[in-house]
């Protein structure tokens, strides 16, 4: 197992490359999910405001 992580002494390079790839791809996905939630929340808020305004009249 530790042999696998050592990658013949090149662990820093192999895992440095794979680590950055994993990190960026995960960040991209998380950021996209967060953005989708923010947009929906904002639109929902806008609609509630509009509905409330309509009821008042």
């Amino acid at each position: 197992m530790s042999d696998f992580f050592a990658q013949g002494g090149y662990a820093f390079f192999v895992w440095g490359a794979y680590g950055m790839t994993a990190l960026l791809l995960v960040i991209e996905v998380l950021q996209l999910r967060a953005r989708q939630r923010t947009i929906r929340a904002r639109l929902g808020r806008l609609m509630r405001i509009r509905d409330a305004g309509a009821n008042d009249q």
Partner: protein
Amino acid sequence: MALNWFKFASPASFYPIAGRLVPAFWIITLILLGLGLYWGFFETADRLGGSNAQKEYYRIIFIHVPAAWMSMWLYVVMVGWAAIGLVFNTRLSFMMANAVAPTGAIFTFLALWTGAFWGRPSWGTYWDWDPRLTSELVLFFLYIGYIALHSAIDDVRRADRAAALLAIVGLIMVPVIFWSINCPDPNQCAALHQRSDLTQIDANILFAMLAMTFGFWTYSFATSFMRLRGIILQRESESAWVRDLLDTGDKA
């Protein structure tokens, strides 16, 4: 062919389709990446012989080459959508181009990063002015230029069209730029990278590399569709269908 393509070209009808496709693409992506990583790490030799011996660090190839391929392919896809948008004046095409650009920029950055981490053990330096690395750097600048121009213009219609035109000019210039980087002396072309020939690659390595490439491809589909849905919601927030959608509270 009674299929009406323009029906799908409207943001309202494509939004739910994209929503249904995203999970499917995620499943395929996970399978392909899992397969590629397993094959790349456990079914390939640790050391490669030959005239230019490569040790374990060659395994960076399984992300470096797919990332570089995707970075170039996504630029072509982006320009394709931008051109369709300019010609047919379809809103969805511009949104597609916009949705693809950040993913393309990320893959370009990853190709550079993994290239540096591969270059250090094999060439002895993180960065070399190797033609392909330099070309990749220029491609990164082109992506950044596209994204920067689009976000600098407030008027969406102008932003879409201006960025599209820039992308097309960029694509036309790309071969000239790459050629000039590759052959700074017109009489001879330099190359630090070895000439690549897919048929000379060991079958196991090639298999892992292709699995990773298709995995990155479906990943790009998934993330661009996710981003596309966000863009559609933002731009169409005033339209009736978005209001209906929020009223029914769909979960997708």
